[in-house]
């Protein structure tokens, strides 16, 4: 096998500058971006607005913050919303953009935005950063003492406005969860061309941080595929100059697994960053995330329980951030009030549990960590083998052959030959392995665990089990016992 490497056409600087301008010229507000002024503005920001510094400070001081999702189209309402998040202890604030912005339909956004102001109603499902432009977005950021992150779209307008995260690397989220026809080759193309921007800022002393999502599991599904993708995202981002990143770790509701994955993901990411030569890229923390379906709209009690469960897992694992949604997640875009009520609950857990510095062992967690580690290494080894040492080549071939695969994808170019279900204790197991190169004895382990559930329920696990499991956590029923008195 060849030396580990990342194939990369590093774009030349002139072309980079031209491409950046082209991107910005797609909407008039792009003119507001003066690259040098943007750097100067970023450098003038206080530490409390710089994402990576906020995360490191939280970690060093043994604190935590919720990292929520929030966006509403009217600027004044957005300011109020973010201020109320800050008041409930959130220091990592997202700016969720609307779906039209994400697809570059700025004209349409402009029209609807006018309608929003006319009616006073939030007709967009997020805050359209591009349409607002630098100056107005700065107004948002300057009115709240916290670090800001544009979600999914915002480009250099977000950076110039003082947000301090940015995307680089191969984003499996866009490929696996948001696109219908994009091929893995197209993902590589698009992510390698544009993304030197982050490096450009880094060269000038501005470190933008990034959260790694990996390929969303979308349902109760073992996290090994996701962690493989976290690693791919990390090394490709580092290659493009990203100096600070941290993984979201998708919590599925089984404590032993959740804790195992929270330990495993950053450990393996570090290992591979180092292996590929990116010792200077830092991991700023770990962010357990609330992933499976949320409790239904009519069950705020369950929703609170779910979010405090994930907060508790975050606190017990001494994470510095937790990716949480509000109790209205199953109902629709939340209001300011449900946001703050939700994160005050999380903060209560953080403050009460995190500060106890509890040292504890969960017996099965070590075994789960080992199983997932073997799976991750098996998939990664095969990828590097397929790429003859080049992780990008390998990834392309892996996706095309289903060596890397994930269920429920909207993307028609994805194999989608895999499926997960829970076992008798709610842990996620592979029901269908597709073409994943999981070692035989590990496959056997999954089958045995599923068999335990089958015995308990008196029926074979199949597609319908997987569909039912979409809601199992949401309904507070991870498997196991039949209803009381039945």
């Amino acid at each position, binding site marked *: 096998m060849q030396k580990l490497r990342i194939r990369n056409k590093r774009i030349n600087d002139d072309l980079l500058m031209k491409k950046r301008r082209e991107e910005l010229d797609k909407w008039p507000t792009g003119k507001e971006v003066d690259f040098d002024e943007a750097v100067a503005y970023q450098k003038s920001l206080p530490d409390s607005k710089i994402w990576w510094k906020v995360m490191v400070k939280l970690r060093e001081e043994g604190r935590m913050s919720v990292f929520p999702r929030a966006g509403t189209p009217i600027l004044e309402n957005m300011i109020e919303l973010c201020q109320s998040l800050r008041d409930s202890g959130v220091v990592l604030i997202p700016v969720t953009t*609307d779906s039209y912005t994400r697809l570059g339909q700025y004209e349409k956004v402009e029209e609807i935005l006018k309608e929003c102001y006319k009616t006073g109603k939030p007709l967009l499902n997020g805050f359209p950063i591009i349409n607002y432009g630098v100056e107005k977005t700065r107004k948002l950021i300057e009115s709240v003492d916290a670090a800001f992150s544009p979600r999914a779209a915002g480009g250099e307008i977000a950076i110039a406005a003082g947000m301090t995260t940015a995307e680089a690397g191969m984003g499996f989220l866009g490929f696996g969860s948001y*696109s219908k026809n994009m091929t893995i080759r197209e993902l590589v193309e698009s992510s390698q061309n544009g993304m030197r921007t982050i490096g450009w800022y880094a060269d000038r002393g501005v470190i933008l941080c990034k959260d790694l999502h990996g390929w969303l599991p*979308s349902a109760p599904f073992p996290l090994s595929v996701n962690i493989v993708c976290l690693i791919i995202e990390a090394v490709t981002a580092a290659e493009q100059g990203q100096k600070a990143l941290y993984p979201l770790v998708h919590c599925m509701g089984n404590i032993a697994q959740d804790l195992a994955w929270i330990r495993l993901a950053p450990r393996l990411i570090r290992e591979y960053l180092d292996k590929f030569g990116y010792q200077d890229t830092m991991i700023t923390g770990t962010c357990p995330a609330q992933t499976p379906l949320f409790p239904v709209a009519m069950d705020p009690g369950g929703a609170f329980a779910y979010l405090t469960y994930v907060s508790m897992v975050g606190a017990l694992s001494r994470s510095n951030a937790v990716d949480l949604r509000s109790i209205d997640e199953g*109902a629709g*875009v939340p*209001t300011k009030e449900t946001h703050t009520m939700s994160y005050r609950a999380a903060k209560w857990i953080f403050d009460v549990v995190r500060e106890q510095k509890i040292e504890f062992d969960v017996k099965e967690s070590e075994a789960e960590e080992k199983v997932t580690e073997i799976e991750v290494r098996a998939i990664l080894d095969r990828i590097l083998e397929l790429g003859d040492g080049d992780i990008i080549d390998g990834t392309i071939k892996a996706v095309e052959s289903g060596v890397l695969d994930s269920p429920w994808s909207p993307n028609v170019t994805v194999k989608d030959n895999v499926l997960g279900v829970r076992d008798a204790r709610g842990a996620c197991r592979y029901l269908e392995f597709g073409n994943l190169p999981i070692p035989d004895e590990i496959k056997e382990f999954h089958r045995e665990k599923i068999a335990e559930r089958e015995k308990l329920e008196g029926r074979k696990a199949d597609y319908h089990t997987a569909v039912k499991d*979409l809601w199992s956590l949401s309904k507070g029923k991870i498997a196991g016992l039949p209803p009381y008195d039945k």
Partner: protein
Amino acid sequence: MKKAPTIITGTVGVDAHVIGTKVVSRALRDAGFNVVELGMQVSPEEFINVAQETNADAILMSSLYGMAELDLKEFNEKRREAGLGDMLLYIGGNLVIGRYDPKEVEPRFKKLGFDRVYPPETDIVAVIDSDLKKDLKTKGKM
């Protein structure tokens, strides 16, 4: 026995949520329907074109991201123009932005041409067994 009715599924507009419409499609297939599964981000025009091409008996449209009304502004007119006035039209999902009372939202979508409007997290199997089969029979499609 008649030929199985043809049903089109998909999420409208630029909505990327796909899991629901996948589950819906499979449930329809399992129930014996002929399903044309368009997946996510289907434009109103595409729904209409495919309906014409396939001579569809119904569309079971999904929208999760809250902006369905914006996406569907001209849909009803166009489908009437396309001669699909008699085709059964259902929609389900999270139909507007924020928590809402389905009773208030239903008439708005009925105005947009939908025969039935479903609140978030509707049980699709129940809908097929009750509403869909009944409506198709009423229309003589089953």
